[in-house]
């Protein structure tokens, strides 16, 4: 059996011999045998270290809390993909890949925190001073402040504030990350109140990412932990749909109108129009381009 390495790379993550698999210097089997948890292993993977018990507990809390979020873009993506009945991993991968700049917005929040902590250092300001300044800069420029608000949980994401509280309980209230995040939340809502706008609570990016940053995960490692953890529930939703739902999601025989039933389509594009013959094509196309009406629809 060919056991050659597929890709020629130097790596400091892991090696695998016929005898063992070693991650950041630890034999994986020894880690498991010793009784470490999977969350412990994530610290080893991304940070090359064994975490404290409190850190492990915080990561358990956060990953377990983030795993399931019912109908969000990730679950909807996995469900839609599995309706065509590909292999399950295709649906799970699709679910994970829905995470972008709006759904679990990437590593951006982590980078924003890091950038501004560094800025406080460079400008000789306190974390609280820089936190207020950052929010003012964002809001004065009409930009969204990352980590605030959730489109479905309009009174505040039920997971977010408890995550902050658990963070403070397990990791303390005095780290630069939690202080910066808390300051930003307070400033953000002070400004909104002055402007006569409603209170907007922290979301899971604001709360969860702050905890992950405090746990020592880089912005990308934190993003990975968040979006991949959601992959578990994407698999569950896809499997439920695969085993108990109709393929294609358009059957007329189901008592409920299906997701892809034709009647679900609302079309708001150009009116139906005649296809020009190939003889008419050049003239037709030239006119269409000159008139420019198509630009209204071009995406």
């Amino acid at each position, binding site marked *: 059996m060919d056991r050659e390495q597929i890709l020629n790379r130097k790596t400091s993550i892991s090696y695998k011999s016929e005898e063992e698999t070693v991650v950041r210097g630890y034999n994986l089997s020894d880690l498991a045998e010793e009784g470490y948890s999977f969350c412990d292993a994530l610290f080893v993977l991304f940070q090359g270290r064994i975490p404290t018990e409190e850190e492990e507990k915080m990561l*358990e809390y956060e*990953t377990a809390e983030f795993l*399931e979020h*019912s*109908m969000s873009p990730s679950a909807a993506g996995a469900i839609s993909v599995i309706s065509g009945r590909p292999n*399950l*991993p295709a649906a799970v991968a699709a679910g994970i890949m829905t995470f972008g700049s709006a759904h679990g917005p990437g590593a951006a929040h982590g980078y924003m925190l890091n950038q501004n902590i560094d800025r406080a250092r460079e400008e000789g300001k306190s974390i609280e001073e820089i936190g207020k300044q950052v929010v003012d800069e964002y809001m004065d420029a009409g930009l969204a402040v990352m980590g605030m608000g959730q489109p479905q949980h309009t009174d505040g994401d039920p997971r977010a504030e408890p995550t902050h509280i658990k963070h403070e309980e397990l990791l303390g209230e005095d780290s630069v990350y939690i202080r910066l995040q808390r300051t930003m939340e307070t400033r953000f809502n002070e400004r909104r109140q002055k402007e006569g706008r409603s209170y907007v609570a922290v979301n899971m990016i604001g709360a969860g990412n702050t905890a992950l940053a405090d746990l020592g995960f880089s912005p990308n490692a934190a993003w990975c932990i968040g979006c*991949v953890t959601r992959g578990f529930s994407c698999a569950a939703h896809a499997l439920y749909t695969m085993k108990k739902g109709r393929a294609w999601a358009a059957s007329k025989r189901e008592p409920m109108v*299906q997701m892809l039933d034709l009647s*679900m389509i609302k079309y708001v594009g150009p009116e139906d129009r005649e296809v020009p013959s190939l003889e008419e094509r050049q003239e037709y196309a030239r006119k269409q381009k000159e008139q420019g009406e198509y630009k209204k629809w071009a995406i």
Partner: protein
Amino acid sequence: MGNLNDPRLQYDYLNREHGTVEPDDKRERFQWVSEVAYKNVHRIVSRGYDTTELVEAGYGLADLIFVDFQARIPLEEESKMLNYVMIMMLEDGLSPTAAISRIVTKSKTLLTQAAGASVLAFGHAYAAYDAFGKMMNAYLGKVDSKELSLSEAAEQMVKDKLESDALGISSLMLKDPAAGKMLARAEKLGIAGKYTSFIKEAEAAAQKVFSEPVAVDMLGATGAVMLDLGFSPESTWGVLAVTRAYGAGAHYCEEVEREGYTRLGQNLTPKENYDGPEKRPVPTLDERAKFAKPGQAKTPQEWRDIVDERKKLKGSGWSIVEEIDDPKRKI
């Protein structure tokens, strides 16, 4: 217009209705039906449990996986065992999952694309948990129906699946004790059940049949333990593919940090590595009829001859024969 007035068409193409289909008010409106989870403005509920209440009570990641997939709180031993399995599945060196995530990374993609690519690399050979679980269930079914004894079923399975990538018994772990340790841990925690017993029976049967030394490998150990933990073959596939994707995230980071990105057209493929048709001139469009050969077969023998010829061209796909899923599915 073209062929659209051909009488063989099933309806009148020239007089088809315009516009979308009216909303269907005779049936219940569409909703996201789920047995798995729901949420409202203030709660997220998985299988009846509020997820915030679960984590506040001290349940962890592995526990939530049981809740989501099996609608139950696991025993402490089960949770420990799942943690153990997940640790073992986190990394596998520069395996297909890590390699593909690194290749995707090189195009300067989002991390999620690299993680998704890693999940996609879980197939029916590498990490063949779906195929493995279904195979185990099929042969254990013969034991349940009293058609075969446990050892007879194991012998039968090994005989039938000798060449299968999903047998879970191979020469891969002869020097690495990790798979054996996992099965021992499952026994110690009281998790080991009929699947663990069966894979051990199969191991004994395989050792009589294979010409080289073999033992339960990581697919066999993790697959059997996951099945004993109550996960279906498909759930096992999904849970473990996601578990590995964390590792892919680390490989994404390292690829960016150490190797950088690749631009379109940057990578060369040496001619020495090419063994396709010799370089030849492109015929002019006028010469096309002289060079072009129609590809349609009129008889089964003609088809066979064409296919055999096509098989010689690697990359055409004609040499691949895939197992076809039973098409009798509800659509």
